[in-house]
C-alpha cells in the first residue's frame, strides 16, 4: 500500500487482519501530553471535554500516529463508584482511599448509572466530538478497566488478594457488579463513537496472578464481559507479563494484546501469530531519559522483532505515556516508525 493514501483506520484494520499495511501502525497512548499541548494544568485539562478534544487533535497532528485515545484517567471509574480522585501537577490522577472500606461493603455496592454520572459523561462527550472530527479515518480507542482488575482501585491490592483466596462468594458478587458496569461503560463509549475498547486487565497478567488462578477468575470474567461488548476489544496488561497465557487471552475473544517490555516481543509475536495482534512494547518509564538515538533504536528493535506479517502495533508497554517523557523523544519515536516501519520491512 502507498503510505500517503492510506488512512490510519485502514492501516490498523490491515494489521489486525494479520496482513502488512503500508507501515507498522503507531499508537501514541498519550493522555497527559494533551494538557501540555493546550497549555493547561492536568486537572483543568480534564475538567472540560473540549480541552481533551483539542489536546488529542493536536497530538495527532504533531506526532502523526494512528489513533485517538479518548481515555481520560483510570480513576474516572472509581469516581463513578463514588470514590475520590487525586490530581497532581505531574502525573496521572490517582485513586484515593478505597471505596470498599471493608469487605462487607461489597454487598451494598451499586452499579453506577453510566448515562447520569458527570465524570463519565465528559468522556462520552469528548469521544463524540472526536468522532465528529476524525470520522472514520482514525480509530478512536476507548478504555475500560476490566471487572477483574478494577478492585485494585476499589479496595486495595492486598485486600483484593485476600478476597480472591478466602471469600469466593463476595468475590463473585463483586465481579457481577463490575461486569454490569464494564459492559455498560464500554458500550456507551462505542455508541459515542469509539472504534474499539481497550480492556485494561493487569491483574490477569502472570506478573500478578498465576495461570491457575487466572483460568478460574480473570479468564472467565473476560470471556463473559467481552462477549457483551458491542465492538472490537484489545486486552492490555499494563506492563504485566502475558506470554504463558497468550492462548487463553485469545480464547476470551479479544483481538489484540498489550505486551510488557519485560517480555521478548519476538516470542510473544510468535505465540500470537494469526490469533492476536501485539501492541507494544516500548518502556515508558525508561523513555523519560531516552535520547533521540535511544528512541530510534528501541523502535527499530520492536519492528524487527514483531513487525513482519502485520499483527503488530508499535506503542508503549503500559498504555499511558508518563508526563515526564520529553516531546523530542515522542517525536523521535514517531520519526523512527515512519522511517523504519515501512513495509516491506527489508
Amino acid at each position: 500500500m502507498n503510505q500517503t493514501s492510506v488512512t490510519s483506520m485502514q492501516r490498523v484494520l490491515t494489521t489486525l487482519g494479520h496482513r502488512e499495511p503500508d507501515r507498522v501502525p503507531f499508537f501514541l497512548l498519550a493522555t497527559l501530553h494533551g494538557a501540555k499541548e493546550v497549555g493547561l494544568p492536568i486537572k483543568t485539562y480534564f475538567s472540560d471535554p473540549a480541552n481533551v478534544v483539542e489536546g488529542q487533535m493536536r497530538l495527532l497532528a504533531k506526532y502523526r500516529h494512528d489513533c485517538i485515545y479518548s481515555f481520560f484517567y483510570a480513576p474516572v471509574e472509581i469516581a463513578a463508584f463514588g470514590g475520590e480522585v487525586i490530581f497532581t501537577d505531574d502525573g496521572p490522577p490517582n485513586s484515593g482511599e478505597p471505596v470498599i472500606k471493608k469487605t462487607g461493603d461489597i454487598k451494598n455496592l451499586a452499579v453506577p448509572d453510566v448515562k447520569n454520572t458527570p465524570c463519565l459523561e465528559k468522556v462520552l462527550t469528548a469521544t463524540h466530538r472526536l468522532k465528529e472530527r476524525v470520522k472514520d479515518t482514525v480509530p478512536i480507542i476507548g478504555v475500560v478497566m476490566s471487572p477483574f482488575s478494577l478492585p485494585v482501585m476499589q479496595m486495595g491490592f492486598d485486600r483484593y488478594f485476600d478476597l480472591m483466596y478466602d471469600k469466593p462468594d463476595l468475590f463473585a458478587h463483586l465481579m457481577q457488579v463490575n461486569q454490569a458496569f464494564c459492559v455498560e461503560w464500554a458500550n456507551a463509549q462505542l455508541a459515542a463513537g469509539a472504534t474499539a475498547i481497550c480492556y485494561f486487565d493487569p491483574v490477569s497478567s502472570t506478573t500478578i496472578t498465576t495461570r491457575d488462578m487466572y483460568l478460574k477468575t480473570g479468564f472467565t470474567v473476560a470471556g463473559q464481559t467481552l462477549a457483551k461488548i458491542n465492538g472490537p476489544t484489545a486486552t492490555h496488561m499494563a506492563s504485566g507479563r502475558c506470554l504463558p497465557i497468550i492462548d487463553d487471552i485469545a480464547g476470551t475473544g479479544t483481538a489484540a494484546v498489550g505486551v510488557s517490555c519485560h517480555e521478548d516481543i519476538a516470542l510473544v509475536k510468535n505465540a500470537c501469530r494469526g490469533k492476536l495482534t501485539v501492541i507494544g512494547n516500548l518502556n515508558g518509564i525508561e523513555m523519560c531519559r531516552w535520547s533521540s538515538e535511544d528512541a530510534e533504536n528501541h523502535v527499530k528493535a520492536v519492528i524487527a522483532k514483531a513487525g513482519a506479517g502485520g499483527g503488530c502495533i508499535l506503542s508503549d508497554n503500559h498504555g499511558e505515556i508518563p508526563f515526564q517523557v520529553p516531546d523530542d523523544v515522542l517525536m523521535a519515536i514517531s520519526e523512527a516508525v515512519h522511517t523504519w516501519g515501512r513495509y516491506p520491512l527489508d
Partner: protein
Amino acid sequence: MTDKIVDAFTRALVDVDRLAAKQIVQNRGHDASPVKFAEDVVLPALESIGAGWQAGTFALSQVYMAGRICEDLIDQILPPEDPDRKNQPKMAICILSDHHKLGKIIVYSFLRASGFDLADYGVMEVDDLVEQVQKDSIEILLISVLMLPSALKIKAVKQKLDRLRCDVKLIVGGAPFRFDDRLWKTVGADAMCRDASDAVSVIENIMKGMA
C-alpha cells in the same frame, strides 16, 4: 536436610497451603531456635519466591500470600519485641504520596518474617516523612512507590534529610524502579530492591557498613 525443608516450605507457600507451612514450622525440632529457623528456612524460601517473581515463574499474588503466611507463623514463635529478634538499626517503612499499599505490605511482611522489626509509617507526604524520620532517629528508611511522580518525590526527601544532617540510608522499591534500573540513583537513594526479598540482603549489607 535443610534444603528439603526449604523446598517443602517454599512449595507450601506458593500453593498458599497455610496448614502445610504451619506443620513444617511446628516440626522444626527443639534445637532450631526461631531466629535460626527464620534464617535457614523462611528467608531462603522467600528469596526463592522473590527471585521466581522476577523471573516470571511466580506471581505477585503468591509473593504476597507467602509474606503474610510467614509473618503470621514467625510472629507465633518469635513475637514482636522478643529479645531474640535481630539486633538492628532503627528502621521504618512507608508509602510515599500514594494509596497503593501492596508493595509496602509485602516488604514489611518479608522483613518481619525474617526476624527484623521496623516501624510502619503508612502513607506519608514528603515533609511529614522527613519530620518523622528525624524525630524517631531512623537509620534506615524504606520507601515504596507505585507511580513515577511518587518515585521522583524521593529526591525531595533525600535533599531535606541531607539539609537536616540526618544520617539515613534510603532504600527504595516499586514498579518505577523495576522498569528503569537507573532511577534509584537519580532520586538519590542508597539502594533499590527489585523484590521484597532483596530488602533483607540490602539491609544486611548496609548493617555491615555501619558496623
